[in-house]
C-alpha cells in the first residue's frame, strides 16, 4: 500500500493554485537552474552578491508570511502553539531561501562577474 502518492499532492495543489501552480513551478525550476548554472560558470559563490541576495531574502521571508496571512485570512497574533511557530518558520524560511536564490541568480546573470579574489567559500 502506498503511503504517499505524489498525485494527491498534485491534485490538491492544482485545486488550490490553479494555473499559478505551473507558473510557480516554472519559476522555481528556472530559478534553481539559473542559480546552478551560475555556480558552475563562476566556479563558486560571489560573496558580495550572496550578501545582497541574503538581505533581500530576509524581506522575501516577510513577504511570504504576509502572503500566507492574506490567503489564509489570518492576523499576526494568531499563533497559538509550537506547531504554529514551526509553520511560521517554515514559510519564512522558504520565502527567504527562494528569494535569495532568485535574486542571486538574477543579479549574477544581469551583472558582470566581479573581479577575481572576491569569490567566497561555498
Amino acid at each position, binding site marked *: 500500500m502506498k503511503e504517499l502518492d505524489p498525485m494527491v499532492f498534485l491534485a490538491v495543489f492544482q*485545486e488550490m493554485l490553479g494555473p499559478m501552480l505551473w507558473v510557480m513551478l516554472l519559476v522555481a525550476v528556472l530559478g534553481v537552474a539559473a542559480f546552478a548554472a551560475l555556480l558552475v560558470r563562476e566556479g563558486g559563490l560571489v560573496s558580495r552578491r550572496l550578501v545582497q541576495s541574503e538581505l533581500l531574502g530576509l524581506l522575501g521571508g516577510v513577504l511570504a508570511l504576509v502572503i500566507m496571512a492574506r490567503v*489564509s*485570512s489570518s492576523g499576526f497574533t494568531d499563533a497559538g502553539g509550537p506547531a504554529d511557530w*514551526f509553520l511560521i518558520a517554515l514559510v519564512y524560511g522558504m520565502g527567504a531561501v527562494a528569494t535569495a536564490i532568485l535574486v542571486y541568480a538574477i543579479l549574477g546573470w544581469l551583472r558582470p562577474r566581479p573581479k577575481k579574489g572576491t569569490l567566497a567559500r561555498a
Partner: protein
Amino acid sequence: MTTDATPRNTASLAGRRRLLAGLGALPLAGAMGAAAMPAQAAARARTQARIVIAGGGAAGLASASRLAALLDGASITVIDGRKAHYYQPGFTLIAAGVKPQGYVISSTSEYIPTGVELIAEKVAEIDPEGKAVVTDSGKRLTYDFLILATGLELNYGAIEGMDTTRIGTSGLGSIYHSPQAAAATWQALNQFADTGGVGLFGRPPGEMKCAGAPLKYTFISDDHLRRRGNRGKAELMYMAQSKSLFGVPIVAEKVRMLFQDRGVKVHHEHVLQSIDLGRRIATYKTPAGTLEQGYDFINVVPPMRAPEVVRNSPLPWTEGPWAADGWADVDKQTLRHKRYPEVFAVGDIAGVPKGKTAASVKWQVPVAVSHLVGDITGKPSQDRYDGYTSCPLITRLGRAMLIEFDYQDNLVMSFPGVIAPLEELWISWVMKTMALKPTYISMLRGRA
C-alpha cells in the same frame, strides 16, 4: 483486481495523516491512505452493471468518480435536481465574514466524470424491492446497485414561527440554509457585533451535519464582539439540546472550559421549539417547562432528518433512535444496507453514529465503493469504515482545534506530537481556510 488497490482494512490506517488524505489537508499530508486513491494503476473491472447514485452532493459525486475510475463498461447515473454544488464546510466562513458567498458555489455538472450520466431531476421514489428509482418527471431507472447519497433535509418547519425568508433581518441568522442565508447571517451578526445585546446559539436534538458548526459560530461571534470592544455589551448563551456540549466527551469538556473562558453561558437540555421573529423571542423546551428568551441575535439550527423520498421508502431504520428521522439502515462499517444488500448509503443519509461531515464522506465512500466493486468482481472487500471524521473547530478567528474522532469517541491524531487535538492553533485555521476546499474538490473528482 481493482479492489486490491484499496486497503484491506481501513481501520489499520486509522490516524495517520487521515485528515490530510481525507479532508484534511495540508497538501503536506495529503497523500496518505491508499484508500484515497482510486486504483489509477490497477486494471478496471469490466462489467455491465447498472449503478444509480441518488444524490449529487459530496457523497454522490465522490462515489461517481471512484466508480468511474474502477469500473469499465458500467452504466453509472447520478440523479440530482439541483444544478448548483455547495461546498458546505465553507458556509461557516461566509457567516463569519471571512469568505464571500461565491466561495462555496460551483456546479454539479463540472464534477461529473466522463462516462457518467447526470439526470438533473429530483428523486421522487425509491423502490428497493423492484430495484428502481423514479424521478420527478416519471422516469424509472432500474439498477443492479444503488448508492443512496441524498443528503438530508433541514426541517425548519419543526420550529414554529420560523421563516427562512427573513434570515438576515431582525437579528435572525441561520447558516445551514444556503450560501445566501450564510451571507445574510453575517449581515445580522455584523450588526450585532456593533450593538451587543443577547446572542442565542445552540443546536437541535437528533442527528445533524457537522455538530461542531453551532459551537464554532458561538466562538466566532464572541471574537467579533471582542475585536470591536463590544464583548462587555453582549451576553452570549449556548442552548445545548442535551446534557453535553458535544458527542465526544473529551471534546465536550474542552468546549465547556473554552466557553467558561470566553464567558459564554451554557444551558443544557434546551430545545428550540418556536420563535417570534417580530418580537425577537425564542421559546425553548426545558426539563422545567418552556422558557421564553429574548434575543438581539440568534443562530437558528433546524432539526435535521432524512429527505421525504427516503423516509417514504423501505430503507430507513425501522426501530431505534434513527427510525423516526428516517436515516438509512446500513451496517456502520460497510455502509451496506441491512435488508437490501445491493444498496449502500454514504454521506449524511447513512444511519450511522457520529459525523455527518465531508470528512466522513471522504472515508465512507472508498469503503462502500470497494464493497460494491467486490460484489461485481466476486472478490469480497475486507474494507471497514471505523467512523473516522474530523472537524476543524474554530475557537476564534485565526485559530481552530483540529478534532478527529471515530465511532468509539477515540481522538484520532493525524499528526501526533505536532498538532495536539485539543489545542487552539493557527495551523488548524490555515488548514480550514486554505487546504480543505482544494482537498474536498479533489475528493469530488476522485483524485484525493
